[in-house]
């Protein structure tokens, strides 16, 4: 009984204390309704805010990309064929004859019994210049790539480098689609595309024929070594076409030096045959690059030199140029 009394007394004490405490505060402690409202408001705010932020981020991305507008002719040179040069159909001599070219490497030999071979090619078009940063950035912008700003910030006239084989092929595929759909595409190019050609990287034969022509020269400009027509043994990449080369085959620039140019040919022993897709499955994943770079000496910028890299390589000395080819 006494205990009961005590408990009641204690309880009264607590109640009194609560009342006094309540008076000590000049604000009302928030009740459940207020609390739940606050909590639900927080949740609702979160939902709206996250939804808004998510949309905003997407908009920002698009706005960043929109800062580099897509150029009308895809940043290609403003000549009648948008920088492409027609290479007539016909045969040319491929590979090296060590008797005429003391700098030839073993992998330039045609076969065990033959030093050089003759290769017949149909007409195709090849870029007068290496693909530039401006052209590549234009492509990245159009495809909403997160790397667009990165390439747009580079010197637009320099050859694009540090891109992998799949990236190069993706650019070629994109340009192919653009040229097919653009009303401004030069008629000759459009007709070639409609006849079954496509924009891609050159294969080894296409590249070598464009570089050395049909008269069997060792260098794009002729038989003698020279540093007058190409960026060889230099300090850095130069804007495409910096070295004018009047004597060069088909008037192409930078087929020797400046940047190595990756091809769509896997590295296999000669004799050269255009590889079928199935045949590629049986060879190592090494892809031929041609022409040497500004870092190379004269022996590596010969028209027949064959370097090779794996398809993921992104190297500041390796770029590419395009062809419109029916092969």
């Amino acid at each position: 009984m006494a205990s009961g009394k005590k408990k009641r007394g204690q309880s009264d004490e607590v109640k009194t204390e609560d009342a006094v405490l309540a008076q000590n505060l000049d604000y009302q402690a928030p009740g459940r309704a207020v609390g739940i409202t606050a909590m639900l408001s927080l949740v609702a705010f979160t939902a709206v805010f996250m939804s808004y932020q998510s949309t905003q981020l997407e908009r920002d991305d698009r706005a960043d990309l929109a800062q580099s507008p897509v150029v009308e002719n895809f940043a290609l040179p403003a000549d009648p064929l948008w920088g492409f040069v027609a290479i007539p159909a016909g045969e040319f001599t491929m590979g090296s004859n060590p008797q005429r070219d003391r700098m030839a490497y073993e992998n330039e030999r045609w076969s065990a019994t033959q030093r050089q071979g003759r290769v017949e090619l149909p007409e195709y078009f090849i870029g007068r210049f290496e693909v530039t940063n401006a052209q590549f950035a234009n492509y990245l912008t159009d495809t909403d790539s997160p790397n667009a700003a990165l390439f747009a910030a580079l010197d637009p006239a320099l050859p694009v480098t540090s891109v992998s084989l799949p990236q190069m092929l993706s650019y070629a595929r994109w340009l192919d689609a653009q040229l097919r759909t653009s009303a401004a595409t030069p008629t000759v190019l459009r007709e070639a595309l409609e006849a079954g050609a496509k924009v891609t990287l050159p294969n080894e034969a296409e590249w070598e024929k464009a570089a050395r022509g049909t008269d069997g020269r060792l260098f794009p400009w002729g038989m003698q070594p020279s540093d007058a027509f190409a960026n060889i043994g230099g300090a850095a990449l130069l804007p495409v076409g910096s070295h004018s080369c009047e004597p060069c085959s088909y008037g192409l620039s930078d087929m020797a030096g400046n940047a190595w140019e990756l091809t769509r040919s896997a590295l296999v022993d000669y004799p050269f045959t255009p590889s079928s897709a199935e045949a590629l499955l049986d060879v190592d994943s090494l892809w031929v690059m041609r022409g040497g770079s500004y870092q190379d000496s004269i022996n590596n910028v010969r028209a027949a030199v064959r370097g090779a890299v794996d398809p993921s390589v992104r190297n500041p000395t390796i770029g590419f140029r395009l062809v419109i080819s029916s092969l």
Partner: protein
Amino acid sequence: MNTTEIDTRPALRLSQVVGSFKLPMALTLAIFLLSFAPRIAANSTLMYSFWGASAVLLLWQGFMLIHLARRPALKDFSRAIYAQHYVQAMVQFSVYLYWGYYWRPVYDHFWLLAGQVMFAYTFGMLLAWSRRRSYMLGFGPIPIIFSTNLFLWFHDDWFYMQFVMIAVGFLGKEFVRWKRDGRSVHIFNPSAFSLGFFSLILIATGTTDLTWAPEISSTLTLAPGIYTYLFAVGLIVMYFFSITLVSGAAAITLFGFSALYAALAGVPYFLDSEIPAAVFLGLHLLITDPSTSPRTPLGKTLFGVLYGIGVFALYTILGWLGEPTLYDKLLCVPLLNLSVIGIDRLVRRIKSDAVLNLWNPAWLGGRANVAHMVVWISVFGFMSLLGRTDAQHPGDSVPFWQQSCSAQLPNACARLVSVESTYCGDNAAWACNELGAHYREGLIVERDADLAYSYFARACELKFQAGCANLLQEQTALRAEPLELDLRLMLRQGGKNLIDTPAPELYARACSHDWAFACERSAAAGE
């Protein structure tokens, strides 16, 4: 008639009132200082999130102090040390330690965990004091934070949402209450409440990629023997808090449904396990809060069974809606918490002692929970013997899904694409090329030339020659056998990659996964 009340209590000085705020102020300062830790300072949004959290807490304290300056009153604590809090916290922490050893982002997250724990304590104190209650000082906030982070945490750029999520959990605990057995108790498990709410928001706003939830869900299995580990630490929780019936019933239900589906459909229900590791974690540590689960043995069993059914159903529903299925284990807990009173009422209506004491016969005395644990240990042992826990699972094998897809078994083609997407994401070139081929052929997925091209490009970058060939010839969808590196990535069975595994062992494992070419190589190597 006017009366004047005389306050007979000794007058409080302002310094005494301010003194009672020492702990929240110290914690607020600690949160602010923590923002300068290299892990946090490295990301400006993360640092500002900590500053923002400190600022909110400081403003709250300022507001309270301004009012208390006029009418001083002490803010105090009462001691509330409960085993269920610190044992849960220790078990959860051990999971972090073990898992983090194999997935380092967990260890990097410790700084952020510490910040959240301090925030939770301070928020809880201020909330209690604002409600004119004494703060129950104990380990309570720690298992809430640990449990939340075992399932979901936001990317650094969105980390302020983590603090909001904690705040919502504590507000829910404080305000969303009901009378249960004559006492006012919170309805929802605080971590499950905020996890459930935020999962819904993430799904509804299409922002599920702002959190680490997918990585958390998929990296648990990087820790070898994770099922056995979770089972072992789960036993501790079961022993102390008698939640064996909840966890066991949930696991058995899920396992049963999965096994039934596999028997009927010919393919596993979940991708690569009978019970996904994250769900297994959830049924030990997320639904076992005694305050928000039924108290009777039959009620606990029903609760566990409902969780099993809920996860099973939500997995399909979320998949059907095209949403990430990993939220299945989170979304159903708040619904289950809501059903607790219903379950209790249902159990009370049962008049049969035999039914009520089905899991609690008198002859067990006070040892019923131990008996339940023995049954659970036997069930887990049986599951392990069947190879349904840590061992190789049919769903781990790509050829299994290829064959199931060819046989047009339910969901098999979608699962094949899903498995290959996972491995392509792991840089297995073969898987990328296969995906490219599927999208180019358009046989088991809708044809998509651009997507196919991007997968081939990735395969080519990874030096898979068929991928490069497919890039050059857009009419083809060439395939080739996986490279050795691909096997090292694709045979990991949810664990770490097999980079250091000797080739013969690798090919033997590939053979056990039904890679025919690997069996030939394995046999040739043995000759």
